[in-house]
């Protein structure tokens, strides 16, 4: 029942998104604009300072992620469908995991465009070690979305949810930002140091495990008024 419910929610979210394309366009447009603005200001004579590309990449991911999280739960609020999800007999953690998976898929699509764009504009060797980069981006995105999905669901009925979400989300996900940026900088170095990347990747995995466990544990009580 758990896996079936997760799959149904992910499929529903993706179907709604394919029909409306609202989140994909908004998130992507925002993220690409962010990267372009920083590229215009930080890239001089075709080169940027070392590590700038990694920082811009993660900042764009987190800003775009915040936007996507807010909008995806706004949809569930408009017709009170989140309440309908809380009424079904599926385990409540399945609802959390379904929403989380939907956000991760959407962010992954955005990142698939962002990474080559940042590599190109900032002349960063991000794609020199694609599997390491994929692992870092995937674990970082998962950690950010895990915390964000819980907070966005909690705040869905709060009047000032648009303000509260980033206020709560960014401080808690600072470790994701630091680990993501440091690992990405290490990946883009000409003398690639696997040890350094492995260290930051382990931190991201630990963050994911801790926060997904916490979210699964707290989702039901925080969603029942």
């Amino acid at each position: 029942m758990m896996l079936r419910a997760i799959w149904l929610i992910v499929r529903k979210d993706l179907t709604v998104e394919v029909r409306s394309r609202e989140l994909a366009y908004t998130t992507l447009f925002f993220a690409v604009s962010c990267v372009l603005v920083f590229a215009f200001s930080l890239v001089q004579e075709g080169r940027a300072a070392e590590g700038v590309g990694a920082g811009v990449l993660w900042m764009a991911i987190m800003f775009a992620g915040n936007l996507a999280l807010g909008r995806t739960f706004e949809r569930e609020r408009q017709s009170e469908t989140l309440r309908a999800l809380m009424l079904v007999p599926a385990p409540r953690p399945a609802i959390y995991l379904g929403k989380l998976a939907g956000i991760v898929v959407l962010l992954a699509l955005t990142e698939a465009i962002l990474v080559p764009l940042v590599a190109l504009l900032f002349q960063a060797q991000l794609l020199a070690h694609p599997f390491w980069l994929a692992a870092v981006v995937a674990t970082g995105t998962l950690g950010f979305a895990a915390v964000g999905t819980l907070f966005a669901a909690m705040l869905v009925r709060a009047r000032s949810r648009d303000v509260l979400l980033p206020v709560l989300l960014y401080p808690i996900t600072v470790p994701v930002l630091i680990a993501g940026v440091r690992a990405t900088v290490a990946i883009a170095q000409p003398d690639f140091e696997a040890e350094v990347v492995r260290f930051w990747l382990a931190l991201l995995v630990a963050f994911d495990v801790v926060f997904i466990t916490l979210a699964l544990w707290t989702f039901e009580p925080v969603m029942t008024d």
Partner: protein
Amino acid sequence: MTALDFDEISAEDVSRNFGRRRAVSRITFRARRGTILGLLGPNGAGKSTLLAMLATVLRPSAGVIRYGTLGTSAGPALRARIGVLGHDLFLYPELTARENLVFFAGLYGLADADARARGALAKAGLDTRSEDAVAGFSRGMRQRVALERALIHDPRLALLDEPFTGLDDASTELLVRRLRDLREGGAIVIVATHDLDLAEGLLDRAIFLRDGRIVQSVESPGALRATYRRVIGRAGA
């Protein structure tokens, strides 16, 4: 998960506060299988809050709600036997009527979700519009889809908040017939409504609420409007 069954729902001294405001105060009632119970009262009387507590989405601040011998801790097995039509319709406007029903049928663990959805849409008289997005439906059509969503899993307890909103005469007649069928099938139906004319002759019992309290409870109610005026006051009628 095993779906449980119950013959009765009871609320004992149930209250609910929102901050310092008391929305529902010391409500006590029982409803047995094969009953249509009406919750009547003006706006803000506590009808929707009471329904939300019966649906298990709100916890009472005090008091106990029992489903047969079980409390709300029965969780998913209990939720599998409850159907809720809210004031908001709980439908995804981007999805078609059929997709909405298939989605919820799947979440209720029904094996033949697509067949159920098609059957439900036929009952609602919307089988020819099953592949149209709900966003393009009128309020009345959406209300009919929402009702089928609430009842798709044959719930033992049906909680309906203003089910007659936006329905034309034919759809209202269809809904009244549907509620009577539910009663004949042994469901407990609890309806919150302002529409006293429609409630007349449909309800087996009426509970009148004002300011979160029960002010009158009537078995086999007749002359609802006169009773409403007497116990609630002319302004709310």
